[in-house]
């Protein structure tokens, strides 16, 4: 019996499902959950203008549709993320000195990228696909971080959904890049 229990615990841990001792509340969250939501909000905030611009200006109708869908999904994800952080009385943005803040300037989409895209007379679609791939690649890293280390089951479920959604967009964008 004891061995079985230990084996079960190990199995749960190895498969990425953190076992929760009975004494803690069923819906406990950890620092990874908070970071996932804060980084997720920041990435939606950065990406939203890009998605809006691409939805308006892309020549390829499939790219316009992808950007429109992405914007809609982001609005929905944004609401959920905010609600949880507010409920946990956590700030909506990562504090100074966190990993993300320290490393963030390397990973963020910049106003200059958007300005460059806006001013393009040609090559708009190709540039837009590149910027979206770059940004969505970072979004997938964030949601996978939650899948690997988050504790709050609904946040883990959201991360799974986000990974699936962004991956399907990355697949479509890479297919467009390869054919263009």
């Amino acid at each position, binding site marked *: 019996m004891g061995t079985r229990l230990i084996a079960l615990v190990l199995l749960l841990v190895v498969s990425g499902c953190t076992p929760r001792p009975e004494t803690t509340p069923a819906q406990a969250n950890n620092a990874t959950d908070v970071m996932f939501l804060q980084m997720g909000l920041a990435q939606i905030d950065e990406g939203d203008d890009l998605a809006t611009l691409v939805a308006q200006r892309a020549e390829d109708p499939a790219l316009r549709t992808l950007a429109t869908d992405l914007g809609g999904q982001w609005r929905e994800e944004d609401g959920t993320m905010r609600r949880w952080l507010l409920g946990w009385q956590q700030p909506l943005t990562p504090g100074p000195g966190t990993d993300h803040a320290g490393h963030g300037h390397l990973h963020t989409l910049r106003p200059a990228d958007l300005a460059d895209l806006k001013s393009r007379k040609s090559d708009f679609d190709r540039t837009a696909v590149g910027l979206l791939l770059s940004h969505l690649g970072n979004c997938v890293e964030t949601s996978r971080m939650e899948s*690997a280390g988050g504790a709050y089951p609904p946040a883990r479920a959201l991360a799974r959904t986000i990974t699936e959604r962004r991956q399907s967009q990355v697949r479509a964008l890479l297919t467009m890049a390869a054919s263009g």
Partner: protein
Amino acid sequence: MRRKFVLAVLSAGALAASLFVAVTPAQAHGYISSPPSRQANCASGAVSGCGDIVYEPQSVEAPKGSTQCNGGGSRFAVLNDNSKNWPAASVGQTVTFNWVLTARHSTSTWEYFIGGTLLASFNDGGAQPGATKQHTVSMRGFTGRQTVLARWNIADTTNAFYSCVDLNIGGGGGSTPPPTTPPTTPPTTRPPTTPPTTTPPATGTWRAGTAYAVGSTVTYNGVTYRCRQAHTAIAGWEPPNVPALWERV
């Protein structure tokens, strides 16, 4: 019994912590999206059975200097598997490579190889790139199915990011046609087993950027060549490299 259980949970926790480190994709930074690199073909679903690379095509990071598609690390060995049916993009002699960068590390150089031949190197001198990057590279007379190895050498770490791109060169089409009248017959006569040596110290009258008419002659490293097709020469189209353009006299 109870104590044993606690110990097991503790060590399971330690195991979880080490797993967390191992699976946290924190080292992700860049790859070639078009023509599609091997990791891009995995992430787009064009090639299946690639493993975790589909989530992080930007993560092929390893110490500088490797000639392997996965950079020689233990991860992503599937990228080295030449028996996998990697699609090869049809291109001309000039190819434009597009990078997707998820982190903008200051960069020393970008290098492109076929086999042991350096096709091109771009020196950024430590500058920080944008979110995307584009290079136009001459295939230097290589034709047929080839694998281009690209290396993004980071300025402030010992590492590089690796992307292998499978190409069918001179097979018509092409992501970027040559800037001038391309040869109507692709230079397929050149045996792929004898790649050109790296940038020989050229002597003679041949110059990149010069427009040559049919019948005009040049010398290149002591050998005289006659132009077979009108074209404007570019680096990589040196007479010994492109028999479709130049015949030895």
